[in-house]
C-alpha cells in the first residue's frame, strides 16, 4: 500500500518537481536576466507535464467512461517530443543571456535543431512516437552548452562561486540531467520496441530520468533562492 503511494507519487514527479522552483519563484520573486528564460521553461514543462501524466493515467486506468478501444488516442509520446523542443529553446535563451560568448552559438543551435526536428518528423519518423533521435540530439546539444559554460568558468581568471553566481546551480543540475539522459533517450526506442522484457526495463529506466528531473528542479530552486539574496 505504502509502496503504491510512493510509486504514484514518483510517477507524478514530472509535475510536482517543477512546482518546487515555481514556488520559490513566487515566494521570493528573484530578479535576474536569466530568470525569465527558466521561468518560461518551467511553465511550459509544467503544462506539458500535466498533460503527459494525465494521458498516461487515462491510458493506464479506466477513467471517466473512456473505453479500452479509445485508449490508444491517449498517447502522450508527442508531448515528450514537444517538451524536448521547448526545453532546448528555453535553455538556449538561458545560455544566451549568460554572456556574449554564447550569443552566436545560441542563435545557430535552435535554428538547426528546429530544422532537424521538421525534417525528422516530415520525412522519417512519426511525431506521435517518442523520438530517440530528437531527444538524444537535444540532450547532447544542452550538454555541449553546459560543457562550454563550465570551460569558460574554469578558464576565467575571476572566480565565480555558486552562491554569488546562481546560474551555476542551474548548469550543474542540467549537466547531470543531460549527461545521463543522453544515453536513456538514445536507446529508448530500441529498448521499447525490441522485446517485452526490454520494454519493462525501459519503463523502469524512466525512473532515473524522473529522479534527475527532480535534481534539476531542486538546483533551479536553489539558484532562484540565491539570486534573490544576491546583491
Amino acid at each position, binding site marked *: 500500500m505504502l509502496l503504491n503511494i510512493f510509486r504514484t507519487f514518483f510517477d507524478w514527479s514530472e509535475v510536482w518537481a517543477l512546482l518546487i522552483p515555481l514556488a520559490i519563484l513566487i515566494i521570493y520573486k528573484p530578479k535576474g536576466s536569466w530568470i525569465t528564460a527558466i521561468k518560461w521553461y518551467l511553465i511550459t514543462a509544467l503544462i506539458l507535464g500535466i498533460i503527459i501524466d494525465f494521458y498516461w493515467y487515462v491510458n493506464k486506468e479506466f477513467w471517466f467512461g473512456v473505453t479500452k478501444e479509445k485508449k490508444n488516442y491517449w498517447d502522450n509520446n508527442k508531448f515528450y517530443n514537444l517538451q524536448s523542443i521547448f526545453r532546448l529553446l528555453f535553455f538556449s535563451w538561458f545560455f544566451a543571456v549568460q554572456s556574449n560568448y554564447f550569443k552566436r552559438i545560441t542563435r545557430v543551435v535552435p535554428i538547426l535543431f528546429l530544422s532537424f526536428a521538421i525534417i525528422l518528423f516530415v520525412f522519417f519518423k512519426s511525431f506521435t512516437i517518442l523520438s530517440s533521435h530528437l531527444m538524444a540530439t537535444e540532450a547532447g546539444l544542452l550538454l555541449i552548452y553546459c560543457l562550454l559554460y563550465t570551460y569558460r568558468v574554469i578558464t576565467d581568471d575571476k572566480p565565480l562561486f555558486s552562491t554569488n553566481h546562481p546560474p551555476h546551480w542551474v548548469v550543474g543540475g542540467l549537466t547531470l540531467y543531460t549527461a*545521463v539522459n543522453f544515453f536513456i533517450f538514445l536507446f529508448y526506442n530500441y529498448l521499447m520496441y525490441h522485446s517485452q522484457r526490454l520494454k519493462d526495463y525501459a519503463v523502469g529506466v524512466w525512473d532515473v530520468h524522473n529522479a534527475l528531473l527532480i535534481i534539476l528542479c531542486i538546483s533551479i530552486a536553489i539558484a532562484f533562492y540565491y539570486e534573490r539574496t544576491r546583491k
Partner: protein
Amino acid sequence: MNEQGNDIPIIFTAIIAFVLLLAISFLVITFLNQRRKWQLHNEMGKLKEQQQNQLIEAAVRSEESERHRIAETLHDEVGAILSSVRLHFSNINALQLDDKGKKLHEKSKELLDDGIQKVRTISHNLHSTLLKEFGLNEAIRNFLTKTVQGTLVTVETHLDNNYLIENPETDLGVYRIIQELINNILKHAHANFINIESVLKKDELELVLHFNGNGLSQEEFEELRFRPEGLGLKNIQNRMILLKGKIFFEKNKKDNRIILTIPVNPQS
C-alpha cells in the same frame, strides 16, 4: 540473440551508472577548482590590501617626519632668529626717535611679535607637543581654541574624559583627521558653530563633529576624494584605513555631522 538481449539491461545500467559518476566527478572537480581559485583570489586581495596599507603607512610616516623636521626648523631656527631680532629690536632706544620713527618702531615690534606667534602656532600645528604631553582631548581643545581665535566661529567640545588610552599612533592619526576636518569646515562649509563630541565605547572611540553651513554627504565625499584637488579628503581616508576606522558624512540643513569610529585597543 536472446543471450545478447539478456545482457542489455546490465550493460545499459552500467553505462548509466558510469556516466552519472562521471558527471558527478566533473561537477565536484569544477567546484573544487572554483574554490581553490576563490581562495587564491582572496589571498591575493589580502596581499594587495596589505601592500596598499604599507604604502599608505610609509606615506603617512614620511609626511609626519617631514612635518616634524619643518616644525623643528621653524621653532629652533626661524623662531630663534626672530626672537633674537626681537631682543635686538627692543634694545633700540625709541625715545631718541622722532614721531614717525616711533610709530614705525611700534608697528615693526607688533609685526615681529605677530610673526613670532605665527611661527610658534605653525610649528605646534605641524608637530603637537601637547598631544604627547596631555593627550588627544587636550590637543583637540587647544587646536580648536587657537584655530577659531579672532573669528566669529563658536566652538563647543564634549570630549569623553574616560579616553585615557595612550596610543601615539592612533592619537596622532585622529588628531590629524580632526585638524583636516576643522580646516575644511572653516574653509568650505562657512560654519559659525562647531561642536565636537567623543564617546568611548567598549573597544572603539566615536567622535562626532556637528556643524552648520554647507555640509558634505557620504556620496559627495566618495566622489571628491578621488579628485586631484581633494588631497585633504584623500589624506583623511588614508589615515582612516591605517586606523582601521570608519568615517561617515551626514548632510543636514542645520546640523551636518561627521562621524568617526576608531577602534582602540586598551592594552596597547
